[in-house]
């Protein structure tokens, strides 16, 4: 399957791969977009499987918006373990 650069960027934006476009996205993610992202990620889920996971992704949209809108200071690094007190 060939995925155009425009479609890939649109897809990544809708599933969170790029910030600004995602903010204005509708909560329901079109199946064709999921198909493109799945192809780009190399998972290549079938349409049947995409129809199963679509409600999961749609239901998380609001929660993810709050997450993506949360601003973090540039000095903050990721932590994998624990912080010593």
């Amino acid at each position, binding site marked *: 399957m060939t995925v155009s650069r425009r479609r890939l960027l649109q897809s990544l934006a809708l599933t*969170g791969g790029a910030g600004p476009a995602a903010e204005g996205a509708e909560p329901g993610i079109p199946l064709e977009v999921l198909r493109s992202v799945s192809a780009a990620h190399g998972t290549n889920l079938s349409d049947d499987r995409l129809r199963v996971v679509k409600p999961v992704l749609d239901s998380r949209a609001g929660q993810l918006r709050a*997450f993506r809108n949360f601003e973090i200071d540039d000095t903050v690094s*990721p932590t994998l373990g*624990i912080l010593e*007190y």
Partner: protein
Amino acid sequence: MAESEILFMSVAGLAPLLRTRKLSPVELVRAFLDRIEAVNPKVNAFITVTGEQALEQAKKAEREIAAGGYRGPLHGLPYAPKDLLATKGVRTTNGSKATSNWIPDHESTVTERLNQAGAILIGKLNLLEFAMGSGQKGLVGPARNPWDLTYSPSGSSSGSGAAVAAGMVPLAIGSDTGGSIRNPAKSCGIVGLKPTYGRISRFGVTTLSWTLDHVGPMAKTNADVARLLQVIAGPDPRDRTSAAAPVPDYIKALTGNVKGLRIGVPTEYFFDRVHAETEAALRRAISLLKDLGAALVDVKVRNASLCGVVSSIILGSEAAAFHEKGLKQNADLLEPLVRERLEAATFHSAADYIKALRIRTVLMEEMRRVFQTCDVLMLPAGNAAPKLDGEIAGTDAPSDPPLPPRPDSYNLANVTGIPAIVLPCGFTAGPPSLPLGIQFCAKPFDEATLFRIGHAYQSATDWHRRRPPLNG
């Protein structure tokens, strides 16, 4: 001594009897095996029972104790781990058809340490497939709540909670990635500890999420959980995430004295989804602790509402990575809900995952600030157990939404790595009357303070002594 008395005694009660040979390990193991045979068909807490092996080990313990080789307070006591801890030569299913015939050639560090302490493996406990959330039927059907068999024991350490509460085993091991020890402890009316990240080795424990997984002890009393942690805690060269921090003597923390201890009580967010009956039980518990000399301090945990989504992204991303091969090769063997969750998680972006780890840093710094104002933080432990049929409805046809939000009061401790304990603190009016729990969190590696407050609370209450109305 009546068998029913033995089944519900604490380690503190049983250990002296074993040490002084007033009770034989063989007699004790037989009593628990009889109990398992009688009630497991109803409770479904055990996937595997290792009866013959357990009796052999009991005879060995009996000989050792008689010869003056008493190893310590767990010697001769039966235990059972959640069936995702590898046990050499004993089937370890992970609650999944995909691994239902796996017989490990190695021993997890936790079970190895228990075996070395003389504890006796009596079987492997039911769980939700790969410890992945709630709402599944599981490999052998769901475990049931001993307080009412139509209710869920909660998960994912469902068998661990149910087995201890039903008097089928005195000591259990669970794992906790987003509340999976504490939630069943609450729902079954027992004590469950999620230790500090790194406190207990995860070698030989099937991964759900490398940076959120914790292994921990479950038992009827706070003191028994302390004794269990004493044996299984500590560094392990086979687990690179295990911490080098020294393990203190937890028994010394069981003073019953909470005078001057500062208990932080959240002023917002955490009580939002708590039923009035649950909140009343929590308020009574902290009021009692105040009467015992503790000081109550109002606290605010900033950005607590992000814990759920941060946990979901980290857990989902890491679980999808761990199960990448299984999704490609054995997806049809997974429960529909588990497969759905893993496949949905493949849509998280790397940027989301890294951002979640950065918010984790923010939340850790926030907890550092919170613990400058209090010694322990009290949090709800969710409401009473849900109906079992309601919880697993839709397993064959995935529900919408398929990921009900977990109580964020659990995720905070996993995301920030701090230790957290759940103690029984009352029952619903019912019917049915179901257990309620209270949760306390502390600074990293300060499990001792959790045991201190737990011991004081259980010395002044009898919730942990109540038994479910379950006959063989």
